[in-house]
């Protein structure tokens, strides 16, 4: 299983804070951030539009990642907008 978290306006727009992606079937399990985005985009128009936007950042196990970053069962992946702290 891959735990996927959403933050800030992305969580609000999707009305979703977390989804769990099954990795039981290795052939369909996403192996990169890009593949996970493609899989999530199939959940509906809201999701497709969200991931079509450039400004969705990602982290794997609480470290910033890119589209090419590999993911595996047990990982915690997060999607969030550009940060605005300080």
């Amino acid at each position, binding site marked *: 299983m891959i735990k996927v978290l959403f933050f800030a306006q992305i969580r609000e727009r999707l009305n979703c804070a977390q989804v769990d992606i099954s990795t039981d079937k290795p052939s369909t399990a996403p192996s990169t951030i890009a593949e996970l985005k493609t899989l999530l985009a199939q959940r509906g128009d809201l999701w497709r539009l969200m991931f079509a936007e450039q*400004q969705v950042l990602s982290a794997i196990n*609480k470290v910033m990642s890119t589209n090419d970053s590999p993911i595996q069962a047990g990982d915690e992946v997060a999607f*969030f907008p550009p940060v605005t702290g300080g």
Partner: protein
Amino acid sequence: MSATNTRIRILEDSFDPAAMSAEMTASNITRSTTGSTTRSTTGSHTESTTGSSTENNTHGALVTFTGMVRDLVENPVNAMLLEHYPGMTERALEAIIHKARERWTLGDINITHRVGMLYPGEPIVFVGVSSAHRREAFEACQFLMDYLKIEAPFWKKEFTPDGEHWVEAKSSDTDAAGRW
């Protein structure tokens, strides 16, 4: 070698930047060698100490920065909600502090950031850096703030008379970090 303290605090309650500054001044006078990591119900608090305590009073400079919630005539704000990614926030701040310590010889570093609901005038962030001389402390304080702005997972939502909206990231913040 003198001891150096690193403190990272994510607080759900308001804090007093003057007390943070006083704490860092006191730390330069009396120093403990014990490091600890604690988590409290009001947020998270990470503390580490490295080095020995054989030398005290070695930091001749302390630079502090406090960021506060603004309420401007052209952009009135009633309140601000600060969201973060618990766990990643602390890791990101630790990584930024590590980069600063590689670049300058620094003493104590304290980064404190509020989360939750804030109101105009309240402090959002405090960054304090001590070092032997002022130049390193001034530069490192700016460096830490510039990188916090683009790498630490915090998000602001403003509540205004016209409604609520998430604050957009500014390219000027990316430019500010790029100069280092």
